[in-house]
């Protein structure tokens, strides 16, 4: 089947089998920053924003999201102009092997867009769909707190 998506702001028309999941469709189309870690919706490596909502792309049937906007980690910032959240992850030492990082950055982004001043419990809840074996999520928590402060300063 064929479907149209707006991926990181760019219109794409993609073909795929009827039972394809969004993860595979995105990777086939060249969005390799979306990773496969478990294919069971547990690790968060495949997270994307679907119309701004955080989802596991391995748990979304691509056929059902025709016409929707998809944002990957490359859609919120670039190497040349990183998003403050990406910069905060770097600064806090929260990027180790980096495999889970795109998913974590998007989870933090989804949180801070909706809730710019999250409490601890809200941060941990926002990250409860991400596994990070390298950092154990410890520096990741610091990165999100730092990102919240940075975004606040930016808006001040």
């Amino acid at each position, binding site marked *: 089947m064929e479907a149209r998506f707006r991926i990181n702001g760019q219109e794409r028309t993609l073909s795929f089998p009827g039972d394809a999941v969004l993860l595979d469709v995105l990777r086939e189309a060249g969005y*390799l*920053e979306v*990773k*496969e*870690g*478990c*294919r*069971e919706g*547990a*690790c968060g*490596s495949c997270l994307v924003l679907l119309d701004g909502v955080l989802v596991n792309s391995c748990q979304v049937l691509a056929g059902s999201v025709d016409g929707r906007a998809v944002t*990957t*980690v*490359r859609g919120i*910032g*670039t*190497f040349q102009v*990183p998003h403050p959240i*990406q*910069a905060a*992850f*770097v*600064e806090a*030492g929260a*990027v*180790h*092997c*980096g*495999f*889970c*990082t*795109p998913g974590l*950055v998007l989870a933090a982004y989804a949180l801070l867009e909706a809730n710019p001043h999250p409490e601890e419990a809200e*941060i*941990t*809840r926002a*990250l*409860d*769909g*991400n*596994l*990070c*074996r*390298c*950092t*154990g*999520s*410890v*520096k*990741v*928590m610091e990165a999100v707190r730092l990102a919240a402060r940075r975004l606040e300063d930016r808006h001040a």
Partner: protein
Amino acid sequence: MRELKSVGRSTTKIDSLALATGQERFTADLAPRDSLVCTLLYSPQAHAEVTRLDADAARRTPGVVEIFSYLNVPRVLHTTAGQGFPEPSPYDAVLFDSRVRYVGDRVAMVVAESEQAAQEALKKIQVEYRVLEAVFDPEAALLPGAPLLHGGEDHAAIPVVFRPEENLCAQVEISFGDLEAGFADSDFVEDHTYRVQAASHCAMEPHAAFAYLDERGRLVVVSATQVPFHARRIVAMLLGLPIRQVRVVKPRIGGGFGGKQEVILEPLVALATLRTGCPARLVLSRREVFVSCRTRHAMRVRLRMGARRDGTITAVEMDGLLNSGAYGTHALTVLSNVGAKVLPLFNKVENLRFLGRSAYTNLPVGGAYRGYGATQGYFAFNQHIDMIARRAGQDVVEYCKRWHIKAGETSGVFKALGEGKEGVEQVVRSCALSECLDRGAEAIGWSRKRGKRLPGGPDRVRGVGLAVCMQGSGIPRIDMAAAAMKMNEDGSVNLMIGATDIGTGSDTILAQIAAETLQLPVEAFVVLSSDTDTTPFDTGAYASSTTYVSGRAVLECAEKLRGQILSAAAALLEEPVEALRIEDGTVAAPSGKRLSYAEIATTCTYSENQQQLQSQGSYVCEESPPPFLAQFAEVEVDTRTGRIEVLELISAADCGRPVNPVLAEGQVEGAAVNGVSYALWEDYVYDAAGRLTNPRFWDYKIFTARDLPKMRTILVDSEEPSGPYGAKSIGEIAINGPAPAIANAVYDAVGVRLFELPMTPERLWKAMREQAGVDSRGGGAGKGGGMQG
């Protein structure tokens, strides 16, 4: 020493931004789009002979290019262990065998043009098995009459104990002093058996590799491997190629923790490419990683320690039985480390015996896993120390401070227990463990909480516990690392290292060491690592060797380059070289004349005294200076359900001088969190037929941010004289302490000791009930804490 400018700074990891912005590519991302897809067929039986394998129908599936099995792949015995040659692991594996030894063992490989064609073909391969009796318990496996997994031509590559006719794949025994006299001299003996479980590394990136033939027919393998040089050697051997015909490249790796210190995928993709002439890729699913890769070795440790009333330990006997699983990779070396990394810590023990055995069973295969035997050994050892200190009426923090090995001291275990050969005598030169103990105890509020059983609410009681550990920094006289550098005309330096950054940041810290030596910023370095064609040798990312061993190689290499720069500058400035000094990327003379590295390099490249400024260095460590760690846990036990909540975990670590404190903390924290979920929840659960029932995160639980206790890392500096700028390694040690610290804290809270991992709430609940039963029958000490059955 002058103030350090680079080492000791929390420099941002050089790849962090590219990773955070999704720029970086991992192995599965790099595989050519048109590469052939490899897929594996696994055994459904725990132990069987393949009596018939018919791949004809499968081969005829459109899109299928080839199917490999024991029928068309030569048997070359090897070990998959990523270790130095000759490996201390037995040569008991072949690429495809006609016998399968665990549910998940490899039977065949399909190579096809698409994922879909491969899956279709997989279903059409017809295999008939003659089922053999299987054995899952290592004790049973060692009994006469047990079904045997190995034999025939399987052999050990070095002279070690290897008796496959008994399912014994490794055995180690050391002793000194007089054990029985030691026990006779004791006032009490604690004799307990501990059990620890298998676990999966859960690196977020599943294993992946691809291969292709370059323009001149050389085989190139790109793999998420911790051991590119070992992979090259083993691939060459298995495929009958000279080593110079094989190139192995490690791009980014999404975590390893020991799971990728194994040469499993590389020979398979190489085989596919060699036979078909086409690029071929193999990317494993998470399920395949759980089942068919490697695990932590499950183990049973019996520990018998005798002590006098004053706490002096007079005798230690440790008897360990490692469950090797179906193959013996790392079975000797993990086993050896159970003793080698644990027993020296309390080095005043004069009467000691360590007996270790590894047994084959028809289960998934144990391999390298962060901690590497120390984790298993410390679960037992630290609980015993807690018991002995208590019986001696002493606070365990003070007890450990008194008895642990100190700087200037040695232990007979260092020399007695190596990895397959004799160990290396060494004297500990840096140890800040006492300070780690003091600072950690203060941070957790030890004296306020210990023994107080503070209530945390109705039916909840709290306790605190301690664990102390040491690890190593590389394997002495075995691990070798090398580095090469060349200066570009702008004064920047290409740093070529074999060392393998698996997310640890080794590219960055090795650049920091070089930067310190050359007085350049880290940004001036172009780091190239882990390509067997272009970077010099390094054993790989294991044994906590990178900072210390690879670091020394980089240091030596940088010092030589510095010497060249000074010589070249002396000639250009016409000043004696002894008078010159290096300052921030320039060379200054007493006369006031000054040349930048760029000026020197440009001149040397193009006009005068022409030469390439370049150097190289190699280092093999003569000793393995241990990092030390004290971990403190505060737990809260729900006395009605047995739920254990870890409130806080404090890790006070001595890694010499941390080259990059934030990265060092990151290593400690990641390892510690892994240690906590290992202590409480992770487990390999098999059914009666030896099948793993929980090969998914659905039922293999690891922590998310929501599960985290309050975590604190305290880095306590000591200065290791043999380390690069005083550094020791830090990669593994922090995974060793959480389980025993938590067990000791649980005992502090409710007076019940758990000897088996994971410490599930049901196990604690049952143990508390049994204790209550004992107490109500009039035995045992009072327990307090509001326990209800």
